[in-house]
């Protein structure tokens, strides 16, 4: 059964390749970076694997390894989603809706003041 198991996993792997390929096939270049960043966050789900490793770790070496695996994976997943959200926050379809940017306004006031 473990040998047929591996075939099932292989099947899932191959299907996922097709899905991955098709799903991003039409991404506009404007979204290349957010997509890269977002998929970077998605592979942070390796945290689940790291947790399993950590839970079953025995002996100091394994525990240290597991600890760092969890730490690194957490950095990946938390940082990844946060930074992606920050990028995407800026894409608003109706920019007029957002509150005016304080920084830009005051800066422009400076510039005007200085020039006139």
């Amino acid at each position, binding site marked *: 059964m473990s040998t047929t198991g591996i075939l099932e996993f292989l099947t899932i792997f191959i299907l996922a390749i097709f899905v991955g390929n098709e799903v*991003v096939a039409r*991404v506009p270049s404007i979204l*290349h970076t957010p997509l890269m960043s977002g998929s970077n966050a998605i592979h942070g789900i390796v945290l689940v694997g790291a947790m399993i490793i950590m839970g079953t770790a025995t002996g100091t070496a394994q525990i240290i390894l597991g600890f760092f695996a969890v730490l690194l994976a957490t950095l990946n997943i938390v940082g990844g989603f946060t930074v992606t959200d920050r990028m995407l926050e800026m894409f608003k379809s109706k920019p007029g809706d957002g509150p005016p940017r304080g920084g830009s306004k005051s800066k422009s006031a400076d510039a005007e003041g200085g*020039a006139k």
Partner: protein
Amino acid sequence: MTLTIWIDLIYLLAAVAFIVALKGLSSPKQARNGNLLAAGAAIVAVGATFFNPEAQFSSHTTNLILAIVAMVLGAVIAVPVARMVKMTAMPQLVAIFNGVGGGAAALISITVFLQHSDSAAKPAVYTIAEVLLGLLIGCVSFSGSAIAFAKLQELMTGRPITYPAQQVINGLVGVAIVALALATLLTGSVTLMVITAVLSLVLGIIFVLPIGGADVPVLISLLNSFTGLAVAASGFTLDNNLLIIAGTLVGASGILLTRMMSKAMGRSLSNVLFSAFGSVVTAAGGADGTGETRQVKTGTPEDIGVLLAYARKVVIIPGYGLAVAQAQHTARELADLLMERGVEVFYAIHPVAGRMPGHMNVLLAEANVPYDELKEMDEANPEMATADVALVVGANDTVNPAAKNTPGSPIYGMPIINADEAEHVIFLKRSMRPGFAGIDNELLFNEKTTLLFGDAKDTLAKLVAGVQEA
């Protein structure tokens, strides 16, 4: 048993959510929701893992506590960093988050390897093969991302680092790794495994060294895809469908994305990876720009302000310098001002302007520039001939006519924004230094062209004033 089924179902749902999220991330409207969906799914899946019998947390309380400590620590570090870093530093941030993911996959592989070598039962060959695969790819991704980070953060030179027979040496290291991995597979030796891991780290470094700073974003995308594959390998190792699907999704879509990115730069992926693009620079352009003797025309902000104010159609062409100067808001101000005066204004966005794809869109979106004022290159180019002024703000390579006219040039063949077709060209930059490709730009010497030296934010502010006075 029943609990396992429920957990597996949750994992399956999370995998589906990831697919839907990735689809969302590919469409401008759904992108943010997609990311939030993925984040939500990840939280649920991680939460479920605490109850996963496989993780044995119920019987290993110390491990549970340590896991929680590691997670809290990770979150406490990651969130502020991700929140506070400057927009221009995004690429290196993505690099580092990607690298640690690869590192986590490698650590998982090492631990599983140790567990197997501790246990009496001999595991199947393919089990160890999967472990080694995860180790290898994870290590390459980890060290490669670290170097990429160092290049972008300017902890080391962004120039390609080359030495004789570089590709041959890299190839030999690759072969050595494969041989060592096979030996590890056959002997099960921990020492060999460690050597394999170390060599893989080395491979990651030497693979990235010859890649120039401007090409690093493409490289990061590739390493991102590698980490995805490493995570998929971890999934095979741990019999975990969620890791297999999520990792493979990222691996497959990442490779496609990488190719699309290099295509947008008018080059093939292998050219980006292996041609040490930009290494000629030091010889040709010179980094100081002082060698230049030919005459260029400069203008005052007042002159240019008048030119802009009385133009019918102005095209703003932003580039990396706009990002460096954080001048997006001032650019918007200038554009708004001109539009108030009835001038037709739009931004022409080159796909690889800046240092990461979509960089300009992100910046201009941050400045609340409406979508309809942004035109992609293909849309903008037919309009260039009818433009009165092309206002080039901190861009260089992306408007360099050498890409069209000079077959020997390293950027030859890359599509550019045809600024040279406009009636007047204004360049806002700080000096005569070249852009990232490190090559001279003939357009600077064109008689149509007027230069205004200075930091883009300052010069734009001066232009705002100039237009107001006009």
